């Protein structure tokens, strides 16, 4: 008898999606607590401009 995998495969996808959604929620809250949306959240944008030697030529 042929096995029907339609629903198990859809449940697998929904489980995977729920896992991703839960992970996104967890990291979003972690981001909030780490200050990414607070007063000092602008520091990385200045730092990235100086992340390499001028012209990219390494010393």
């Amino acid at each position, binding site marked *: 008898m042929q096995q029907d995998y339609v629903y198990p495969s859809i449940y697998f996808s929904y489980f*995977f999606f729920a896992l991703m959604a839960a992970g996104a929620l967890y990291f979003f809250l972690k981001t909030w607590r*780490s200050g*990414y949306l607070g007063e000092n*959240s602008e520091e990385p944008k*200045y730092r*990235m401009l100086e*992340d390499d030697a001028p*012209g990219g030529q390494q*010393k």
Partner: protein
Amino acid sequence: MPEEISNTVKSGPAGIAGSWPEHEDTTAKWFLISSIAYFFIVGIIAVTIAAKFVWPSLLGTVQYLTYGRLRPLHVNGMLFGWLLAADMGLTYYLVPRLCGVKLWSEKLGVATAALWNVIVLGAVVCLLMGWNQGLEYAELPLPLDVLVVVAWIMFGANIFMTIASRKYDQMYVSIWYIMGTILWTAFVYLTGNFAVLFATGTNQANLNWMYVHNAVGLIFTPVGLALAYYFIPKASNTPLYSHKLSMIGFWSLAFVYVWTGAHHMLHGPISQWLQTIAIAFSLMLLIPVWAVVYNFFATMKGQWHQLKDNVPLKFLMSGVVFYLLTCFQGPMHSLRSVNAIVSKTDWIPGHAHMAVLGAFSFFAIAGTYFMIPRVFRTRLFSESLGNWSFWFLMLGGLGFFTTLWLGGFWQGWQWNNPAIPFIDTVIALKPVWIVRFFSGILMFLGIVSFAYNIMATIIGAKDNPETAAA
């Protein structure tokens, strides 16, 4: 050039000048070089299938050169051979720099690049032979799908280990987008290439469309935006307008995008509630899109004059405009009334090409123009040729997109009139496909001039005394 206009940079709170690790960039170079080669080769395929629309008997009945074999080769070659490989190469370049450390493992990176080339070359053979799973964007046979998963784990491990060893606590927004890309790709690719094989009928179609839409929305969009967030400030030597806003854009994209795939099945045999959810979330996409685009435009305030002679910035800001347009189109044609006209017509490839070529390939080309002279410690072979590559791609792209949108609407109205025989709608579109072909020629000239410029830069770097001494 960026280094000549450094007076536009405001003093930041975390100056780290003079403390750069020595990056090897071997992996980034290999990914970029191979991706550009595939861009050129698959560009030939693209022009060939565009020609087949105008001259259907072109290349006769040789099975390997039929439309059915070449079209999946074009799609997979551009997505995985060119764009994703270029995105991965640029990721290997920018993540170590943003983290202030060297790449965790160059050896693992080079092995990943080698495996990626095996996958792409395997795909060429398999698709030309007709070994095809028959699912949109998931045409690769199962053994190659498994290799893609292995390569992605190698890529993800290398990038996550580099991020884990970073010098700074707070990460720049590009790193968030790249981490999202790695995790979302795992989810999207496994669903679209493995789970879908166990479903049938409407359920299979629904899973497939979730994969197709999220291949663009959760793979190419986040990695493309990671590149834009990195290269727009770097190429203009101007700080991003708001890092906080960029984080809001990131999280709103993370929560909204995944639900939209079912809008490909509007008026189809799926539940009305699922269609309505897809429409609602498609409209909500305007939130992250505007957060991103406003941030880029505000960054460029007072800096627009740089577009005149800054080739990477031309590609970047044109890409931003195309991103805005494509993300306005998407929600609009998710509305039932518009969808009833444009669905399955030429409008869709016009829309898809504006996203994948006009926005994300433009970001990748800009990143390549920015990165290659720096990692090879030389100057770009020709700024003039860089400008030519931009205008060829821009004019060809505009011709292609607008023609297919107009043609798509025309086609949709004809299809909605049962009095018109289907074959008449095919014949009516021939003028559209002629313009599409000549636009394709222009785009291919853009690819050729871009590829030649980059390769000449790399070859010319050998003659640079500074490079030779390094």
